[in-house]
């Protein structure tokens, strides 16, 4: 039997106090805050806030800051979630499918699941015509696909991606 969870890394959980929690909440809401602004909102001193942020970074809780790109403003108006069931007849089917999907430039996210769906690809396209082209030429040609369901995103209601500390 293959152990599903055998490869999962054991992660040490970092204990937070109230100051850490306030700092993380404020930084999640606005990562561009200066240290004095952050300290004021987290009700502490700038020196203490700076030390806490440094510690959270050193412990790997804060991994960094990333720019958020508005793909619609770049002309990519179509966002589709493709939920894929993998044909497991071949021994390395999932690995081969994932390796091929990583090479498709329009794929922005790739997730694997425990559940009815094996794999999800988030795909961007300029318009429906372009999507059809990507789907036909680069998705349907991926190996070991048994079934695909598509969900077309009509609107994003919430995309905070925040951890409720």
């Amino acid at each position: 039997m293959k152990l599903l969870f055998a490869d999962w890394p054991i992660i040490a959980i970092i204990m937070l106090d109230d100051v850490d929690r306030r700092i993380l909440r404020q930084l999640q809401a606005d990562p561009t805050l200066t240290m004095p602004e952050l300290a004021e909102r987290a009700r502490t001193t700038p020196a203490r806030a700076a030390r806490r942020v440094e510690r959270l970074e050193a412990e790997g809780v804060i991994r960094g800051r990333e720019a958020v790109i508005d793909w619609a403003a770049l002309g990519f108006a179509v966002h589709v979630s493709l939920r894929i069931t993998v044909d497991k007849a071949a021994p390395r089917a999932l690995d081969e499918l994932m390796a091929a999907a990583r090479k498709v430039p329009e794929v922005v996210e790739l997730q694997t699941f425990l559940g009815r769906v094996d794999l999800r690809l988030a795909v961007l396209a300029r318009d429906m015509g372009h999507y059809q082209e990507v789907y036909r030429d680069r998705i349907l040609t991926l190996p070991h696909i048994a079934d695909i369901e598509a969900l077309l995103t009509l609107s994003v209601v919430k995309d905070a991606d925040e951890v409720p500390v």
Partner: protein
Amino acid sequence: MIALDEIDRRLLGMLVQDAGQSAGALGRRVGLSQPATWRRLRRLREAGILRGQRLRLEPGKLGFGVTVFLGVKLSRKAGVSLEAFERAVSGIPEVQRVEHVLGLYDYRLRVIARDLADFERVLRRRIMTLPGIGDVEANVLLTEERFPGPL
């Protein structure tokens, strides 16, 4: 819509990796002066392409070990208001992402929890009590990769 050249694309790619880099540091990597780089970044912000920044956290280190994607169908029986559902679901702290979708489901949710028992609590107490909630399908996230996209 503004036209982007190769340098704009490289700047965007670098900022997605690390938004904390100064215009000077970015400029050195693409062979531009600090003011020239700053002008490009301002143009990308003004065009709405650079929409802001996001803190990248390691949820596992904070004790959040489980992420579940939910496909949600609204019940067709009652007069369901999408607004009421969207307001209520967006207010749940464990719900990180809500998308209104077209297809097999009406909404796609990304939910974070401490463990499976905690997820069950969120599902039972917060999700299944939402106004208009119908069928729910859950898939537990095993691995995730994000890519820069067609830049």
